[in-house]
């Protein structure tokens, strides 16, 4: 089933476009140092070259510190996508692990994970993250990943738990149990591959949630520290000049919207592919 899900997805045009956009973003992030014409922290002349409109020298214009916005957006992809991908991986791994534990062991493990989910879901995530960042001061990207990832696993855990419980009742898992397969083997060999598409959906949604969250953190001054560019703090620089320097907002916003939108489209199409597959069965 899952193999078919992936195959279906690859034949889906919106999904291919979205994947291509995300792939391009990832490539840009990786090759940013080679793609960017300027050092993103270079301030050639913060007095006379600040806030220049887009031109042949500076395709995306310059910011209030005379830095090249295109170079910053390219390097910002590195930081923003790096943090987003890291946080997403952490959230999904954590969510899958806890959801699987809850489903497989049941009993008090299930109750404990359920209680944890209930507690965390009751606390608004943005506030929790803001609270922690405000509490412990500005954080390094690694801590940011830990924090955003550590608070974003709830959805994955719920999905994985529900799907695991569903699959645990199915005959093929019973057959494996009858064969003497250990819990570990059942999870690894049978359940995880079965639930992989759903986890991928959760991952895409997590990615889509993390990027705006990073931007929101930057907006309250608690995001990625300068001079390291991130899409969030480039946007923040732009919010002061909404009416006077549109290029500061439009380009990073475009990057954010494209990436988040692609992740959402991918999640949608993947879900559709799963549903189609379930339907066919």
């Amino acid at each position: 089933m899952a193999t078919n899900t992936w195959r279906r997805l690859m034949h889906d045009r919106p999904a291919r476009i979205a994947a291509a956009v995300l792939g391009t973003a990832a490539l840009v992030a990786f090759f940013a140092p080679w793609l960017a014409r300027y050092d993103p922290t270079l301030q050639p002349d913060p007095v006379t070259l600040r806030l220049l409109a887009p031109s042949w020298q500076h395709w995306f214009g310059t910011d209030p510190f005379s830095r090249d916005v295109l170079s910053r957006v390219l390097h910002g992809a590195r930081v923003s996508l790096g943090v987003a991908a890291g946080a997403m991986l952490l959230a999904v791994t954590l969510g899958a692990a806890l959801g699987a534990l809850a489903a497989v062991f049941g009993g008090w493990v299930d109750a404990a994970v359920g209680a944890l989910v209930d507690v965390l879901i009751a606390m608004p995530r943005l506030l929790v993250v803001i609270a922690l960042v405000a509490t412990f001061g500005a954080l390094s990207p690694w801590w940011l990943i830990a924090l955003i990832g550590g608070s974003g696993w709830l959805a994955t855990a719920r999905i994985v738990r529900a799907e695991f419980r569903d699959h645990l009742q199915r005959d093929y898992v019973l057959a494996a149990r009858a064969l003497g397969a250990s819990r570990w083997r059942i999870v690894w060999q049978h359940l995880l591959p079965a639930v992989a598409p759903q986890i991928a959906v959760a991952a895409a949604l997590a990615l889509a949630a993390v990027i705006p969250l990073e931007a929101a953190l930057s907006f309250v001054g608690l995001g990625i520290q300068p001079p390291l560019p991130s899409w969030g703090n480039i946007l923040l620089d732009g919010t002061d000049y909404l009416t006077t320097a549109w290029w500061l907002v439009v380009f990073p916003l475009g990057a954010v919207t494209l990436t988040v939108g692609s992740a959402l489209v991918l999640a949608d199409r993947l879900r559709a592919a799963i549903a189609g597959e379930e339907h066919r069965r």
Partner: protein
Amino acid sequence: MTRIFLGRLALVLCLAAACGGRDRGPTGGIVVVSAGADAETLFPPLVVTNQGRAVTELIYDKLADIGPGLNTIGDAGFVPKLASTWEWSRDSLTITFHMNPNARWHDGRPVTARDVQYAFKVWTDSAVGAVQRSALASVDSIATPDALTARVHFRERAPEQFFAFVYTLIPLPAHRLAAIADTALHDAAEVRAPVGNGPFRFVSWMPRVRLELAANAAYYAGRPRLDGVVYVVAAQGATVAARLLAGEADFLEQLAPPDFAQLPADHSVRAQAYGGFDYLFVQFNLRDPAATERAHPIFGDVALRRALTLGVNRTAIVRSIFDTLARPAIGPFSRTQWTADTTLRGIPFDSALAARALDSLGWHDTNGDGVRERGGRPLAFSLLVPASSRARQAAAVLLQAQLKTIGVRVTIEQADFNAFLDRAHRAAFDALVGGVRTSPSPRGVRDVWSTPGPAAGTQNFGRWSNTTFDAHVDSALAATSAGAVRAHVRTAYQAAIDDAPAIWLYEPRLFAGVHRRLTVGALRPDAWWANVASWSIDPAQRLPRDRRASPTP
């Protein structure tokens, strides 16, 4: 001296009265002030913030107020308020204030000397926890020979004893508050809906939303021209400015640099300069944050501090962030202070010289990573910046790029303001972008830059200590003539500049955003609200909200 002064005072009084009587100008209209913060309380002893003062000082008058010259020594230039006259005893240990017999509380009761006495009791009672009571430490007691005479006895003579007393102590309505226990005062309903004696009376307060004041028709110095003042609060800087630009507010205390870019497109708002008492700096921690008994491994060396200062182009920083809205700072003072001295010898910007100085101090980039090192230690430090201040962040980013060119690596650390102050107080930082809002008095310099101790240097986060500076600041604060004060202060300031405990960054010039319909006259640099009673609104430009919001006079 006393008699001469009294004569001059009488003249001022006459002039004021004459002016008030002849040119009333248009009355009516409501001024809406767009504020970035709310008053924390309306109880004067607990007020700390500027916004708190901006509100309470319209509701409550002082005995006398500092004059337009902002002199703080003796009583020269001070304008009578609740006290119409005062006289000094021969030994200067007693000042007798004669209350204005026309002064009334907003409930109609006369303001008496007992209210002064009661206020002094409240201010000095530790159960109340008045924050600025150390300013009253030199006052021994207050006697009330009659209802309109308050005799203030001082423990010791000081050049600024008059200023310290009248600037701090605000008479409180004893007839309303005396029945309330001191410990309950901070949260009493009476205090949240205060009855004052100033030009405006309290109408309503929705914390963090808005606060409304109405003209006090029975004000002893004549009814204010405005019908009322309303403060509307928004936490976001962009919103505070947007309110003014959208025409929803008439006045904004301070325009931020990005706001200026929007002004040309909008002819309904103008910027009005009024000095300012802020100066900002990069403060070095002279002590090792890990072990405060040791000198800081980098900043312990004055030659290095000077070399870093040489490497910073402050003019470029100021131009980039503020264009012409700020000036490079000179030393530990603001140009608006009367003790300011613009002829001091500063450390110029010369990055070649800075590089040579660092070379000669043994800091070389031996491994080619662009950062100098000495004995295996890189020339790198972290710069603590409050996340709440966009300008300070910008300054840090510019500084970081400039120092990078001379082989110094700066890591910026943003912290929310609370954490920033906490780390500053604990000296848990390498360097920070600090800022001070001074008062007209040179007194403040002692708290920030004198050697830390119980009486001074409480805000000296970098633990800088310089005996020349300390001695001359102390002498200046004890001097009774303006000339002597200036001479001592000059020497002290020069010592501070030469010893470079900080890089003196910039002094923002304050620009208020004022709606075209509003005439505000001159704004006092230490307190923009000082003359609100004389502000007026062009009758031809009244807005519906002036009528709508008009509370019954």
